[in-house]
């Protein structure tokens, strides 16, 4: 789960990382007065919001209110702006921008720490073109606090000296605390600004929380709005506990097990079709789960056919068949079913006039033909 900048900054501030003072507003009327010039930052969970016009500045309350009017009408990469962080504007002239981050490292099975003197909006370009400018260090697995000397070594390596070096190292340790305390898989400050007069402050903040750890991070879920990260159909699927991803095509795909569903999408594509979604009903799906899965995929407009691919291990084919029969889909279906209680499942479906395939490839091909109108049901 990605956190908004304001939420990540709250967490950083709790850990003692300096962040600009600010307030979150959900409408222009919520801003009452200004003590100083401000930056107005749209809170959306996509990169490149600055370039998309989602970050503005204002010197007085009237300007700020009219900027807010504008921002709340804005859509950034399809996402409506629903919250704006109004922050004290800093004098960034001549300031230095650093990058500090921690990320889960699969291959090394640990957390990797990263630091760079070339922070700012172009960090991804730096990472691909001048990777040597980002210092990386794989940490001892299971570390609960970052050793200050390790943070200092990194700060020295990126060219920092004296009090600035020790302060940045201290912020690095605090950022690591935020990562550990909140079960993050990514925690980033980009940029960490060092102003001309030596003030050090995190002007942006990014955190991704491990979805599997949300059971022990419940306080983070309090004010989270999932409407932003997911489409309406994806939200419905989440309610039912189904793994669904919306895609561009017109052939809906339902299967059990993530790997098999991915393989089903690929096979549809091989035969010239375009999958409309990824949907994994999960292991041990009941008739009710299957009905819900059909309801979810059918929400998408312009569907031409539905490809259902079941290899029953703990999933029982008769349960799946009952779900299909009860839902009575209006869209033509290509069905493939194998495994546990296969005969019972096939019997139910045949009684209702459905044709069932044994091979997933043959069935995928049939689904593509149904979609192109080459085959009727």
């Amino acid at each position, binding site marked *: 789960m990605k956190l908004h900048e304001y939420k990540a900054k709250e967490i950083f501030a709790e850990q003692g990382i300096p962040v600009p003072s600010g307030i979150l507003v959900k409408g222009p009327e919520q801003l009452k007065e200004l003590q100083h010039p401000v930056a107005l930052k749209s809170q959306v969970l996509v990169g490149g919001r600055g370039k998309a016009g989602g970050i503005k500045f204002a010197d007085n309350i009237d300007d700020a209110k009219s900027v807010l009017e504008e921002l709340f009408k804005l859509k950034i990469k399809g996402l409506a702006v629903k919250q704006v962080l109004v922050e004290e504007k800093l004098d960034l002239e001549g300031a230095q921008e650093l990058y500090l981050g921690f990320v889960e490292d699969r291959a090394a*099975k640990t957390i990797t720490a990263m630091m760079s003197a070339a922070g700012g909006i172009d960090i991804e370009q730096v990472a691909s073109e001048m990777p040597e400018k980002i210092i990386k260090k794989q940490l001892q697995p299971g570390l609960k606090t970052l050793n200050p000397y390790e943070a200092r070594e990194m700060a020295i390596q990126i060219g920092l000296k004296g009090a600035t070096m020790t302060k940045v190292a201290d912020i690095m340790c605090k950022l690591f605390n935020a990562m550990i305390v909140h079960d993050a898989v990514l925690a980033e400050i980009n940029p960490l600004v060092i102003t001309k007069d030596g003030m050090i402050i995190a002007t942006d903040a990014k955190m991704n929380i491990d979805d599997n*750890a949300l059971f022990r991070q419940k306080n983070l879920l309090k004010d989270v709005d999932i409407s932003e990260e997911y489409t309406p159909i994806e939200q419905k699927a989440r309610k039912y506990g189904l*793994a669904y991803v919306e895609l561009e095509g017109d052939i809906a795909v339902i299967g059990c097990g993530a790997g098999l569903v991915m393989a089903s999408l690929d096979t549809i594509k091989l035969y010239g079709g375009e999958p409309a979604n990824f949907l994994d009903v999960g292991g041990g799906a009941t008739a009710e789960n299957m009905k819900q899965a059909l309801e979810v995929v059918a929400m998408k407009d312009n569907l031409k056919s539905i490809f259902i691919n079941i290899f029953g291990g703990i999933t029982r084919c008769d349960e799946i068949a009952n779900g299909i029969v009860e839902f009575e889909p209006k869209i033509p279906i290509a069905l493939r079913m194998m495994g546990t209680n296969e005969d019972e499942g096939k019997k139910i479906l045949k009684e209702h006039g459905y044709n069932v395939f044994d091979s997933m490839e043959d069935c995928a091909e049939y689904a593509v033909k149904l979609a192109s109108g080459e085959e009727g049901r």
Partner: protein
Amino acid sequence: MAIIIDESTRVVVQGITGGQGKFHTRVMREYGTNVVAGVTPGKGGGEVDGIPVYDSIREVMELADASIIFVPAPFARDAALEAISGGMDPVVIITEHIPVHDSIEIMDRAVSHGTRIIGPNTPGILSADKCKMGVMPSHIFKKGSIGLISRSGTLTYEIVDALSRNALGQTTTVGLGGDPIVGLGFIELLDLFEADNETEAVVLIGEIGGNAEELAAEHIKQNISKPVIGYIAGRTAPPGKTMGHAGAIISGSAGTAKAKIEALQSANIKIAEKPGDIPELVKSSI
């Protein structure tokens, strides 16, 4: 032969008194697995289907060699660390949705004890006609000479079934687990299959996310003489969306199916376009 587990493996089930633990203990025994004990803290002294239940791994150290874990995610870290410190090997973690920070800790402890971890979020491991530590449907497996390593569950069943139907039996089938951080990987298992006399060829089933397949390709070039046949799921997956498995996500340009397929092909590995093509590719390689 088979790798990691066989008929001599004595298995303890952690979480044997839960619904999943109870059900799969029965199914594993039906397959021939020698389940000698169960552990559920607080339920010691009882039994499940005639199998004695203990409070801790310490009490079964002399009875059992290997552990399979069915306990819920919030308690899985503790169960795994207990199994490792009690000398169980391998430790198969079926549990899904274990937090990444917990997995990091489990894997680190396993490395320092020399314990082989399979999973988490795995269907398990099965040595055909010898021993099953997992939840896969037993009837699709057939004894033979193909080794199988996979990051997926049901897709593994699909491919095992296709192999068995084409008279291509298996030595050992291993599900690595669908999480970003897992124990044994392609490389360790490729080495074990390379050393196993009975295994003639290895089928490697990967999916999008991470770079495990790319690293395996490099390793195969240098160290593996047996034929390897590959399949990668997720060619059509869009970047930034998790495809069911926590590990199956393309971030930036890394982890795409295209990059993985190219890496494997550069190591002379034949890549199946569809799961149904795998048996033919295997037959033409052995």
